[in-house]
């Protein structure tokens, strides 16, 4: 496969500057969301669910330190959830600009290899969008800290350290610290592979649906999950229900097969995306 680093740099620069409005809109959208989240979330963190006596109870947090910790964990959690949804949306825009013939001609006729074009797009829409979202989050947090004393009577610390601390979830050490058992590691690997698979499937959806990549992929996911749940219930109905669920208790083989399946599905999505992109025609 052809790959020239200098030309790849030109492709990146061209794509970035040609689509700079898209990245500015990404930034502004995420900034507004994060400022709103940071401000609104301060209103309701003196309540928390407590699990006692076999059921949940709403409890009022009166301790200032607990309130602050609750605010940080929950708000940064929501910010991170939005961050990952945004990354899915972003990668689903992979071929958004190729939905019309003139734009396809511009892209396909650019004198660079298909690999350079594919990789350039991916870099800008995944690590690039990741940077945009993190920058928007940091700026939104700074804005919240600036307006907080005026809008609210209290002050709360920056969300940025907690936002990144929650990323520890992705580090293998996190699981090793929890439990060094191989089952836990396999399930941890599975959770990462699941994220990669979702990412790859949104990439594929973006290439197949172009204009409504994120929406159509999400709809397909919902339909697929619905069918899967229906099938699972149907199978459970056909067998002894209690026995079925008991046998389904995950073991080592279950996680190993699941991980292998997720890996194969992820690789399949990436390969199909590459094939779709590299064989794209003008009509």
């Amino acid at each position, binding site marked *: 496969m052809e790959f020239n680093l200098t*030309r790849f740099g*030109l492709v990146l*620069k061209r794509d970035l*500057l*040609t689509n700079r409005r898209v990245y500015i809109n990404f930034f502004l959208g995420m900034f507004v969301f994060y400022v709103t989240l940071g401000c609104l979330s301060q209103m309701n963190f003196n309540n928390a669910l407590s699990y006692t006596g076999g059921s949940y109870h709403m409890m009022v947090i009166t301790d200032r330190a607990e309130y602050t910790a609750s605010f940080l964990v929950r708000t940064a959690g929501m910010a991170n959830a939005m961050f990952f949804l945004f990354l899915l949306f972003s990668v689903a825009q992979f071929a958004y600009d190729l939905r019309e013939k*003139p734009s396809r001609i511009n892209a396909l006729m650019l004198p*660079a290899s298909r690999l350079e074009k594919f990789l350039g797009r991916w870099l800008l829409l995944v690590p690039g969008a990741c940077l945009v979202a993190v920058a928007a989050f940091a700026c939104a947090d700074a804005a919240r800290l600036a307006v907080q004393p005026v809008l609210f009577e209290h002050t709360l610390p920056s969300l940025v350290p907690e936002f990144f601390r929650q990323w520890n979830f992705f580090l293998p050490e996190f699981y090793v610290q929890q439990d060094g058992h191989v089952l836990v590691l396999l399930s941890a690997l599975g959770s990462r592979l699941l994220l990669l698979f979702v990412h790859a499937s949104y990439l594929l959806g973006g290439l197949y649906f172009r204009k409504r990549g994120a929406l159509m992929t999400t709809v397909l996911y919902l339909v697929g999950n619905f069918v899967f749940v229906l099938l699972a219930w149907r199978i459970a109905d056909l067998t002894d229900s209690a026995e079925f669920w008991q046998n389904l208790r995950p073991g080592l083989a279950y996680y190993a097969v699941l991980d292998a399946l997720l890996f194969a599905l992820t690789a399949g999505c990436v390969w199909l995306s590459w094939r779709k992109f590299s064989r794209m*025609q*003008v*009509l």
Partner: protein
Amino acid sequence: MIQIENLRFGYGRRNPVFKDFSLALEPGGVYGLLGRNGTGKTTLLYMMCGLLRPQGGTVRLGGLPAAARRAAALQDVFLVPEEFTLPKMPLRRFVSLNRGFYPRFSEDILRQCLADFGLSEDLRLGQLSMGQTKKALMSFALATQARYLLMDEPTNGLDIPAKSEFRKVVARHMGEEQTLVVSTHQVRDIDSLLDHVVIIDGSRLLLSKSVAEVTAELVFEELPAGESADGALYAQPSVGGHSIVRRNKGGEDSALNLELLFNYVVQGGREV
């Protein structure tokens, strides 16, 4: 060289456009690609630059398979499509972002072409009329000095003075090594430019000859009303008489009348 061999292509199984179609375009010169509506001129241009993949046969551009869209092949071909978009940015930025992809890009040619078209170098793409945008793109195309320039209806959207400017710009800035393929219905806009005429009708290549060969074989004449058109291969009414095509038996000189030649070949259904 653009080499098309046994090309097969269609939009769906029931709508074949090319079936066992072959054509070879030698390097250098201006080729006029003519044909009726829907006979596959644009499709053929797309095939030449790899924007469409043949369903059978091969299309080679400078020896490389066009459909592979290799960087080395793409830097030697520039397509000016009939419909196109340019990013909304100053022309200078557009040039600085794209010139690096074309190793022979010439700022001088770009400047001269823009000047010939009456355009400033400080223009902003996105704030121009369709004709001005087309002139800017054609200037960029010529400045790339790509070996193969493909233009689909280049004079559509150009005003009357701009059509003659187009001819002048192409004649002035085309290098001897460069090949320009122009697909158009506006035959009068390009007839003085052409070195070679290609007329297609779907799977059939009706004509592929140099202008010199055509005018050595045929004479294009205007006859006043009442004068006999006997011996003409083809005649059509014109203002004040007839336009005719006849065999050139005595080595006569006549200017190519592209519209008449096209009608003779297509309507007369003869392969020259």
